[in-house]
């Protein structure tokens, strides 16, 4: 889809040997580095592993072709289960030439660079015959020789490149989808070919109308037009006829009813006229209309697929089989459908949890990144709850199933997203309603026209009325505007899940902001320093070895000092002591430093720091308190301006955060006194949002797992970059850059899109009124119809493309 493909590849990085990007940042992804390995800086272990693997395999060219640089993730799993007979029976196909084929799901397949990394496997791992990936589905079709290389080795190679491997479960669904997609493409192609050829014939006929044409040539062209039009338009419009008939049966209004009516009447009446060699034919207009409709629906269906794909991949990660432990202790492998709540299941290391459950035996750790975004393994023991789809990393565990299938958290999320993507926006329902009245009005007018003119002339005029008022532009108005908006939004890093989300973002109300991440930088830094400058340098040197966020703040932005560090001792939750340049330093929470030294010299400074809701740090040198530092998460530059723009758009911003009330109050004051509440629990957030909804639209912005419920409960939820998977799924919008500007951009874009849709509807109804009036008056000519019908569709297209929505990047 254009949304993803449109992002141009980044300019080629320097040649391979010096490909390490962005000096100062992570050598692999360019993010702020926190550690260094072999003289290269990295932001995380994942990046370090992947960088080394890429270098070792000679795949340096990756850095030239990739168009997205993101931190890499590796799992360090052994993948022994892939060599298992059970896995082989389920997923691996033997081929006639002795090789085996398997379809895998790879995480994080995103860009041209990933395609190259994965598809070059045959020249790096001997025994791999062929690898093809499908970026959109995260699917990888692999052919290998089992006598030369075990599947687990290939999987470890792919994992080391930053693409953790899972069995691919979506094959059945892919098959069904593929059938639909191919049928749609074929109808589009046939209708397009018919349209093109009919136009050529129509030019001849219209030319003849102006310059004169032999009667037999005219008949020939009309017969040829009919022979092309009836099969191509008939074939192309089958889906339209189907929905129209279904809507009529269910007595529902649907925009396909007037469309199908216009096309059917046009085809039949045109054919009658060809056979009788009298009257007009409208085949060229009908063919264009059918073709345009099919193209727009194909584009819309593709963008829907994209929205649902992410959630389905989550689903694809949950296993299809489970090991059930019987009452006698015997373990049997059963299909996941056979597992019931209360069953005892065994999950081996490296496997994904098949169900939601509670651990009843064993200790291990889980990787719950797919649900929480938290990449650190979580320790679990007896009594802890685990979720389907998370991976058991450590040792075998037994669990009792508490929820299976669609009742699991993953299942609920997938269902939720599927509902979201198929739900019709109110504006689309409005179009259906308009179309319902439209049919009624047009049919009434047709009857009146027939009676008023009387005889063949009456029928002729009524038929042309039905054809020229076929509301192509009405049917195109919403999908075109929405698709253009979603496409542009996606290229500027805003992913919106469907038309109704856009619509719900368009009516201004309250914006509930989660402080961390959206308003502040998200990384603490030293904002107050009270004490001698050389001590600041020593502190930075002493803290350099620590991974604690506050230590990282203290180590950064300090004067460069070369000093030796010795006796580095770190106390969790307190601080550290070290000997720097011969001086004994104690750095940490005032309470802890105060145990050993008198804090009186810096008491005033500390009080001022606490007063500004900064985190205080006391520093003692050789047993004397000499310096104090205040650390806080500073506001993003431009946050205040963004708040002002929000207000200008008609929104009322407020802060609702789980952070310390004093800190929240300080941020709110700095932004000009926003309404605020700190220390809010997830349940209280949900209650607040639900209460606020009674007073009008509420847009919730959040990133944490704790925000997910509130995001779903709000009129529209926006998840920001770095958000947990659950939050992303629960939200209607995902914004890739974590600042407020992108959110303002989204809200403004949604308003502009709705304005465009309304303009489109007006334009299409305007053209139809004129066409209808001319037809009733008997003044319409097929040439005029042929000009007016595309003109109305093109006006709608032009209006959609001209829309200001999401025009500029945030």
């Amino acid at each position, binding site marked *: *889809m254009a949304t993803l493909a449109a992002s141009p590849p980044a300019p080629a990085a320097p040649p391979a040997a010096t490909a390490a990007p962005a000096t100062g940042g992570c050598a692999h992804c360019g993010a702020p580095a926190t550690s260094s390995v072999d003289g290269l800086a990295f932001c995380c272990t994942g990046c370090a592993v992947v960088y080394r693997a890429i270098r070792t*395999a000679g795949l340096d060219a990756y850095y030239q072709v990739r168009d997205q640089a993101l931190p890499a993730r590796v799992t360090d799993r052994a993948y022994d289960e892939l060599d298992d007979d059970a896995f082989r029976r389920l997923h691996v196909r033997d081929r006639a030439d002795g090789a085996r084929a398997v379809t895998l799901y790879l995480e994080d397949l995103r860009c041209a660079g990933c*395609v190259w990394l994965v598809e070059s496997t045959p*020249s790096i*791992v001997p025994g791999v015959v062929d690898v093809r990936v499908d*970026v959109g589905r995260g699917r990888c079709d692999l052919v290998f020789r089992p006598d030369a290389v075990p599947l687990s080795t290939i999987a470890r190679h792919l994992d080391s490149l930053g693409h953790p491997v899972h069995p691919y479960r979506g094959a059945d669904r892919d098959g069904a989808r593929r059938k639909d997609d191919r049928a749609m493409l074929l109808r589009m*192609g046939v209708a397009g070919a018919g349209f093109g*050829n009919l136009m050529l014939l129509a030019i001849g006929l219209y030319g003849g109308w102006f310059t004169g044409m032999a009667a037999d*040539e005219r008949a020939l062209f009309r017969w040829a037009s009919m022979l092309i039009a009836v099969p191509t338009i008939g074939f192309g419009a089958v889906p339209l006829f189907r929905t129209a008939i279904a809507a009529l049966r269910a007595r529902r209004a649907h925009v396909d009813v007037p469309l199908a009516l216009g096309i059917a009447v046009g085809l039949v009446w045109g054919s009658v006229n060809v056979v009788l060699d009298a009257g007009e034919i409208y085949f060229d207009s009908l063919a264009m209309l059918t073709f345009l409709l099919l193209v727009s629906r194909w584009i819309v269906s593709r963008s829907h697929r994209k929205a649902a794909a992410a959630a389905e991949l989550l689903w694809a990660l949950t296993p299809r089989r489970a090991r059930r432990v019987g009452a006698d202790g015997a373990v049997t492998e059963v299909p996941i459908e056979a597992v019931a709540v209360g069953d005892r299941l065994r999950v081996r290391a490296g496997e994904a949890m098949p169900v939601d459950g509670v651990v009843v035996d064993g200790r291990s750790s889980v990787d719950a990144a797919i649900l929480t975004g938290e990449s650190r393994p979580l320790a679990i023991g007896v009594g802890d709850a685990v979720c389907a789809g998370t991976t058991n990393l450590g040792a075998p565990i037994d669990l009792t199933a508490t929820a299976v299938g669609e009742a699991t958290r993953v299942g609920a999320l997938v269902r939720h997203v599927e509902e979201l993507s198929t739900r019709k926006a109110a504006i689309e329902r409005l179009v259906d309603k308009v179309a319902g009245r439209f049919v009624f009005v047009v049919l009434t007018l047709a009857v009146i026209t027939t009676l008023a003119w009387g005889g063949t002339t009456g029928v002729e005029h009524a038929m042309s009325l039905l054809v020229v008022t076929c509301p192509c532009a009405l049917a195109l108005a919403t999908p075109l505007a929405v698709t253009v908006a979603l496409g542009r939004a996606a290229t500027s890093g805003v992913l919106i899940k469907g038309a109704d989300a856009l619509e719900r973002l368009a009516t201004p109300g309250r914006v509930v902001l989660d402080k961390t991440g959206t308003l502040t930088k998200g990384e603490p830094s030293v904002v107050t320093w009270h004490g001698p400058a050389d001590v600041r340098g020593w502190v930075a040197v002493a803290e350099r070895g620590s991974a604690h966020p506050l230590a990282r703040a203290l180590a950064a932005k300090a004067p460069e000092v070369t000093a030796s560090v010795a006796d580095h001792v770190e106390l969790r939750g307190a601080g550290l002591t070290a000997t720097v340049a011969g001086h004994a330093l104690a750095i940490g929470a005032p309470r802890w430093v105060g145990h050993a030294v008198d804090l009186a010299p810096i008491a005033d400074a500390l009080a001022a720091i606490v007063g500004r809701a900064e985190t205080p740090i006391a520093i003692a040198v050789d047993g004397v308190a000499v310096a104090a530092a205040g650390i806080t998460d500073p506001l993003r530059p431009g946050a205040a301006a963004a708040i002002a723009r929000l207000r200008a758009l008609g929104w009322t911003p407020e802060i609702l955060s789980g952070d310390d009330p004093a800190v929240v109050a300080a941020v709110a004051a700095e932004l000009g006194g926003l309404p605020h509440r700190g220390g809010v629990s997830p349940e209280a957030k949900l209650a607040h949002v639900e209460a606020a909804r009674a007073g009008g639209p509420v847009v919730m912005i959040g990133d944490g797992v704790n925000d997910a419920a509130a995001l779903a409960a709000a009129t529209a939820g926006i998840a920001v970059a770095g958000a947990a998977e659950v939050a992303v799924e629960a939200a209607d919008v995902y914004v890739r850059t974590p600042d407020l500007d992108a959110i303002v951009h989204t809200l403004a874009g949604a308003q502009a899109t709705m304005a465009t849709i309304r303009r489109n509807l007006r334009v299409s109804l305007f053209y139809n009124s004129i066409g209808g009036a001319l037809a009733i008056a008997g003044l319409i000519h097929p040439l005029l119809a042929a000009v007016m019908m595309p003109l109305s569709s093109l006006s709608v297209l032009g209006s959609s493309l001209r829309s200001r929505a999401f025009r500029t990047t945030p």
Partner: protein
Amino acid sequence: MTTLYLILILALGGAALAVAAFAWTVRSGQLDDLDTPPRRILNDELRVNRPVDDAATPP
């Protein structure tokens, strides 16, 4: 006039062939994945940097 008949048949025959060819590309799955090939084409000139030897097999 006779030429017109001939040309019309030839032209329509050509169009029918094009439609048949399109139907074949759709049915044979060449248009199933529209996302990956435009990225893959960027990689045609890239080469793995180093000759392969058995010791390069990853762990």
